[in-house]
């Protein structure tokens, strides 16, 4: 315990004790011990960070968990020792808890800390952990009830990186106007990633797009290509602001529905051909972010390729689970219009009809305001479902959304999640897959239900 100050020592000890107690009682998680440590020593994160070899921070509205997993897998393949807040515990207490979990009083080698960080927690995490890299994936409308407005998030990010210098690299999505220009006010290095594939352009901005006017001059943005929500090749007609040219660019992308994607990625180190088992265009962005960060850490292309291609989906993030009777569940977390639209686009682009369950809760972690359902383009479901089950605390709102979409679907409403999933699986013929689209707390409930059935093995691990 040489060098550990007294207050931090008590904070760590108390947190470790609490963790053991919770574990003995059959629980898990890192948030409660972290919260306790933070209470005992308010500068716990800053002090703990000194025992690590700097951090890699991943933030953004969508894709934090998947991007950190991809990067984590690359680090593992590259034999770089690191720790990761895998539990998705991405608020301050979760970060503190994770750093304590991996802390031993006798440790000699310093690990790298790979931290998935909530949008609003970014300033605290940045100032306390000496980041080598910060990945800004994207910024969409999400849980406005928690943060107010997306403009505000952008401005706290901007402030958080003001003091950084060139020892930090910012990995920025060049296609997202709201994060691409963050580097302009900071002395840190910037690495841009983006998509350069005309075949995937949507043609026009979808309804749920957020940033359509220029951040510099408020003029109207023109999009030569739109890939996803407000992400694309933009330029401002009034002040001349343009999308930065991506250093790491996906040039030929083949989306293979729920199976995943193949892409040719141009990098400063040469061409990278990837075959990834994570579906949807949003996962192309996640992979690009992870590849860019790995390159910034000096990792070679063969290691990156092996790491990305060996990655599996996190629980509930486009994961397929086998059940009895050769039936399957496919679970894809939905939490905001941009993400939901992409899931719909990935799953329902072909003619084939699917068994679907949509479950919407309105607890704090889901976002208490369910207005966002009206920004999702459910109209694409027309003729694409065999049966649509609707569940969750806000099942009625969801059912109403479908009613006003004017499409005619065979729907059934069952508020109780356990009952809904039981019925949906039972009514479905042998050999079929039920596509479950849950909000966050429904996904957690689902995890428990499936664990009780013995269908989902990794429980606390994720």
């Amino acid at each position, binding site marked *: 315990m040489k060098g550990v100050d007294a207050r931090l020592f008590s904070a760590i000890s108390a947190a470790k004790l609490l963790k053991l107690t919770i574990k003995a009682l059959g629980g898990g998680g890192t948030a409660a011990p972290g919260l306790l440590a933070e209470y005992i020593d308010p500068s716990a994160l800053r002090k703990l960070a000194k025992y690590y070899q700097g951090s890699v921070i991943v933030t953004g509205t969508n894709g934090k968990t998947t991007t950190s997993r991809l990067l984590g897998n690359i680090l593992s393949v590259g034999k770089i020792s690191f720790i990761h807040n895998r539990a998705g515990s991405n608020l301050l207490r979760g970060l503190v808890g994770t750093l304590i979990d991996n802390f031993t009083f006798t440790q000699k080698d310093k690990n790298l800390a790979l931290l998935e960080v909530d949008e609003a927690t970014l300033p605290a995490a940045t100032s306390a952990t000496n980041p080598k890299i910060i990945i800004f994936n994207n910024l969409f409308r999400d849980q406005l009830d928690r943060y107010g407005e997306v403009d505000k998030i952008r401005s706290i990010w901007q402030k958080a990186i003001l003091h950084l210098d060139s020892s930090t690299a910012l990995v920025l999505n060049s296609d997202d106007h709201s994060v691409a220009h963050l580097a302009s006010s900071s002395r840190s290095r910037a690495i841009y990633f983006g998509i350069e594939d005309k075949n995937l352009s949507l043609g026009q901005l979808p*309804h749920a797009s957020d940033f359509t006017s220029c951040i510099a001059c*408020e003029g109207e943005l023109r999009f030569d290509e739109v890939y996803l929500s407000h992400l694309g090749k933009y330029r401002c007609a009034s002040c001349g602001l343009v999308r930065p040219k991506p250093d790491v660019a996906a040039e030929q992308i083949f989306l293979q529905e729920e199976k995943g994607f193949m892409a040719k990625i141009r990098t400063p180190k040469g061409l990278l051909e990837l075959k990834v088992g994570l579906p949807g265009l949003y996962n192309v962005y996640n992979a690009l972010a992870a590849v860019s960060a790995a390159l910034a850490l000096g990792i070679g292309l063969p290691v990156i390729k092996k790491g990305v291609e060996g990655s599996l989906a996190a629980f509930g993030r486009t994961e397929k689970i086998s059940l009895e009777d050769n039936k399957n569940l496919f679970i894809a977390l939905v939490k905001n219009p941009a993400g939901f639209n992409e899931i719909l686009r990935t799953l329902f682009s072909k003619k084939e009809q699917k068994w679907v369950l949509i479950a919407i809760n309105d607890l704090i972690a889901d976002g*208490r*305001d369910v207005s966002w359902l*009206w*920004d999702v383009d459910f109209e694409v479901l027309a003729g694409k479902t065999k049966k649509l089950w609707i569940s969750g605390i806000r099942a*009625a709102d969801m059912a*109403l959304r479908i009613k*006003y979409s004017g499409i005619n679907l065979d729907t059934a409403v069952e508020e109780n999640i356990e009952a809904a999933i039981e019925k949906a699986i039972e009514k479905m013929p042998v050999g079929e897959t039920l596509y479950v689209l849950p909000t966050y707390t429904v996904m957690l409930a689902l995890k428990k239900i499936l664990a009780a059935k013995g269908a989902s093995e990794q429980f606390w691990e994720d």
Partner: protein
Amino acid sequence: MSTYGDRGNVLTIWQRCRWRGIEVEVKEIDLKEKINPAEIDFYFFGGGQDQAQKIVSSDLQRYKKDDLRKAARLGAVFFAICGGYQLLGHYYRPALGDELTGLGLLDVVTVAGNQRMIGNIVVELNEKLKLNKENLLVGFENHSGRTYIGKRAAALGKVVVGYGNNGEDRTEGAYQGNVFGCYLHGPILPKNPNFTDFLIEKALFRRFGKIQLTKLDNDLEDKAHEVAIERARESR
């Protein structure tokens, strides 16, 4: 402007008319576009963030103010949410920077507050509006602006659960003639079908006089309405 589900309000008016055989044309009004007050019966005005609101405020002053005032005089219905509501008033005064001038169609003023008022909200409609059926409005509020009502406008209703216009006087929303504004997202209209029909009747009046709308099956709407009330009571 359109944030957070505002599209649902337009969709609801459109569908509830269509289901009754009333044809509706939805026209999106762009920046710099002029308005023909003789043509439009119903103006919906959604919410927006600070930046959008600033742009829209100056656009309204420059291109649309006179025609919109004329439209209101001719009896068109206006319905605005959140940022749109604020711009129907006289002004929005931010904590820093210039005041945003509104249209002055509603005798209300809004000043920036330092606490954001967020959560489920239930409002009892002003009895002067004479909606004799269900008289509660449900929705979700999320604003830091505090709105105060002047003499010529009246409150749309009284707060049962939530903050309302300013978190102080228990009023929510405002109306003046056929101009209505409030803070309720949710979106408001799908879950409050009687209020929606009330607005539709008002919009039809100018061309067709008093019309009794045919009844629609509101089971799902009523269910969502009830759930919203429950959630508001549980979460506050």
